[in-house]
Structure formats: C-alpha cells, structure tokens
C-alpha cells in the first residue's frame, strides 16, 4: 500500500487520472492522422514541383538565410516548450508559464518571417498561388503548417490564461501537456519542410 502511494506521488499530474491518460493517447492518434494529412500535401508538392508554368521555380525563390532563421526560431521554441513541461513536472507553475510565453514569442517570430517570405514571393516576385502548380502546392503545404502554428499560439495563450485562473491541477496540466505535444509536432513537420521543400529546392 505504502509503495503504491509512493509510486503515485511520483506520477506527473497530466497522467494522474484514467481520463487524462486516455485523452493523451487520443491526441497521439490525432497526430498519427496529421502525419497522413501532411503526407498528402508533401506528395502533391513533390510531384508538382517541376511544373512551374513559366513562373519562378524553387531555386529562384528560396533564400537560405530566411529559411534558417525560421528553422532556428521554431526549433528553439520546441526546446523551450519542452522546458515548460519540465518545469510543470517539477511543480513550478511560474517557470512553466515563463517558458510557454517564450515559446509563443518564438512561434510569433517564426510566423512573422514566414508571412514576410510569402509577401515577398507574392507581391515582389509575382509568385502567387495562381502562378503555377508548383506554387499552388507550395503555398498549400507551407501555409497549412503556418495555420497550424497560428492555431497553436492562440491555443497556448488560452491555456496560460486558464492556468492563471485555475492553477495547476490534473485538468490544466493535461491541457498544457497535450498542447506541448502539438507544438513539438509542428517542429517535426517543419524539419521535413526544411529538408524536402527548401534544401532540396535549393540544391536541384
């Protein structure tokens, strides 16, 4: 009995109820489906990338500097999001909120550079969604990821507000943990955008 209680004392809040465990499992199933969603967009892009219809191609548009800035902003935000969950598991609410705020700011920085990149393409280089099959699939793929980041930012903001109002309990801890899974997942997708869209586009 005593041993069980001790085991339980060491279980993180987000895993402390059966319902929470099921919710977290459910979110992993959702992430599996998201893999399939992004796979279809990646497949479309990679098939259509040579179809530039006389418009600008990847090697004329992509710039390593912008892409690297975006990559490091999102990678660092994923790291700070991990630190937020780490602080939560140490029972440090303030530390957790602090790292979540840093995560949101880095995510917003990423979005700023991405929107600037899109405006540069569309307004200054005449590369819009209507220009070619390559650009339609490019904006759909990268834009879908960008929308996910935007949703993630608002989601985490609302969760921070809820933690401030209700404190850290089994429910709010689960919400922080699940939103952190979502945020890390966005970086997983970005790794493949960075590699399969940008690096590959600049090489060939």
């Amino acid at each position, binding site marked *: 009995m005593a041993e069980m209680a001790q085991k339980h004392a*060491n*279980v*993180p809040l987000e*895993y402390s109820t059966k319902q929470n*465990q099921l919710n*977290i*499992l459910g979110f*992993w*199933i959702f*992430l*599996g*489906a*998201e*893999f*399939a969603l*992004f*796979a*279809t967009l*990646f*497949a*479309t892009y*990679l*098939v259509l990338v040579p179809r530039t219809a006389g418009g600008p191609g990847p090697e004329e548009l992509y710039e*390593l500097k912008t892409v*690297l800035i975006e*990559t*490091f902003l999102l*990678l*660092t935000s*994923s*790291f700070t*999001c*991990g*630190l937020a969950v*780490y602080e939560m*598991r*140490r*029972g440090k609410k303030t530390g957790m909120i602090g790292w979540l705020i840093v995560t949101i700011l880095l995510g917003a920085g990423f979005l700023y550079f991405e929107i600037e990149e899109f405006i540069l393409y569309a307004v200054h280089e005449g590369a819009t969604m209507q220009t070619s099959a390559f650009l339609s699939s490019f904006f759909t793929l990268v834009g879908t990821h960008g929308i996910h980041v935007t949703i993630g930012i608002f989601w985490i903001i609302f969760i921070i507000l809820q933690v401030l109002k209700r404190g850290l309990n089994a429910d709010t801890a689960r919400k922080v943990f699940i939103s*952190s*899974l979502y945020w*890390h*997942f966005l*970086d*997983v997708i970005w*790794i*493949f955008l*960075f*590699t*399969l869209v940008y*690096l*590959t586009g*600049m*090489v*060939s």
Partner: protein
Amino acid sequence: MAQTQNEKGFPWKHVFGFLLSIVLTLMAVWIAFSSGLPAKTIIALIVILAFCQAFIQLVLFMHMNEGANGSWQATMIYYGIYIAIVIVAGSIWVMTFGHQHHH
C-alpha cells in the same frame, strides 16, 4: 507506467536534444551546399538526417514511449510514418517515373 516520472534537477535530456538538433540542421545545410556530392546522394543523406531529428523530437521532447499507453502511442506514430512514406514515396514513384515512361 514505469517510465513516467516527475522531473528533478537540470533538464539534460532537453539540452542534449536541442544541441543535437542544431548539429543535425547545420550538417544538412553543409551537405546540401558545401559537400560537392551528387544531387541524389545529397537528398538521400539530408532525408536520413531529417528522420534522425524527427526522432529526437518524438523521443526526447514529446516522451513518445512514456505513460501507461506508451507502446500504443509509439505504434500509432510508426503507423503514421509508414502511411506517410507510402503516400509520399508512392506518389513520386507513380507520377514522376511512370509519367516519364510515356514519353
């Protein structure tokens, strides 16, 4: 739920994962722009690096194997990755190489 625990001390795992991710990213950039390898080799190598980095996120940051349902979570993701590879590689194979054959 053997592996799930509250945390103590310094987040070494996260710092290690972060540094490794930076190294892998820079390695991919170096291979792409400075290695002088043929394009196909470059693409194969950077895709391998991307998968390594994805696993760092999944295991070190997302704690994929943790919790009472850890093995289920991992199974779900491996299945997702399997579907993703089939869709992406299959589409490229059918649309690119199949298309060329007709000309």
